[in-house]
């Protein structure tokens, strides 16, 4: 079977994740959408690894996972901190930057 099919699905998932980041207000869902995008990228890495016939892509995907883990840890900590102070997990409520 043609490996590029995986790439198409990766692109679709990435796009869906991007839309999710924009349209969802719940910080946790937003976060999950980001994870979705990362995972989509990982799928691409793995597919490219297969296409190119070496393991570099898989190593990259591995690194991405670690980075994603870090990001989740920090990001969720932030969500908790925000939730503590504002009693809300909606990203729209954290808009102090606006004039």
């Amino acid at each position, binding site marked *: 079977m043609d490996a590029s099919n995986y790439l198409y699905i990766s692109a679709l998932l990435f796009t869906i994740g991007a839309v999710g980041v*924009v*349209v969802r207000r719940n910080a946790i869902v937003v*976060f999950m959408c980001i994870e979705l995008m990362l995972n989509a990228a990982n799928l691409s890495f793995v597919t490219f*690894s297969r296409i190119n016939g070496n393991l570099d892509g898989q190593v990259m995907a591995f690194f991405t996972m670690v980075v994603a883990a870090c990001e989740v*840890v*920090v990001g969720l*900590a932030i969500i908790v901190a925000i939730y503590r102070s504002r009693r809300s997990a909606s990203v729209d409520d954290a808009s102090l930057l606006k004039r």
Partner: protein
Amino acid sequence: MMQLAIEVGQTATPEAVMFWILGPLAVLAALGMLLVKKAVHSAILMAFVMVVLAVFYIAQDAVFLGIVQVVVYTGAVMMLFLFILMLVGVDSSDSLTETIRGLRPIAITAAVGFGGLMVSLLGRATLGRDAIGLSAANADGNVEGIGYLLFSRFVWPFEVISALLVTAALGAMVLAHQPRSSKKTTQRQQSINRFRGESIATAAGLPAPGVYARHNAVDVPALLPDGTPAPNSVNASLKARGDMLDSNTFDLKKISTQVEEEK
């Protein structure tokens, strides 16, 4: 697109079967993530997508990553998500109406454009390229291969990323940590407060919250001898949260009548 359709018709390997079943499911699950109201449902759908991806990894000779995907993502990360979800309120469901004017059309248009262009580009870039396959690279086993690369060519990024991980852990602690708002009182201070405070009435300690058989009584104030509730018998944090109940609800007289009625 035609090419794609032809290929779909022609490929009938087990992998293709797996792909054409799981792939659409994953996309649907991802779309579902956007559309469901409750975050918990989103999380479950997300977990499903991740598992599908793990399957895809394994199907593509990335056994190690597939396992890690299940263990780390579906196991650890998603648990973390759910945990936080529980912390901030599992019941809350999002309103899906958009509050920022014009955002949704922009996002959807941009996304459609983005996805379309991406697919188009991918089609152009990969068409006619045969996958080499990983059988050669995985000759010594997938885990060994990745392990070899990690500790040879990518050892420097590997070390850096470990530092990042440690930093992230520390960062999370710092962020989530709440400093004390007031200084912790020593025992000595407490006893001084108790005996030399405003009133000696509480010198023997605050009254304990009332205990009623029909309710977990910590959030119900004790009743004073004259029958009035004593609010200071309830824990301050419960009071602050608004979780204190009215003790009249559990008035003995009412209970007794109810009992009589039951009889």
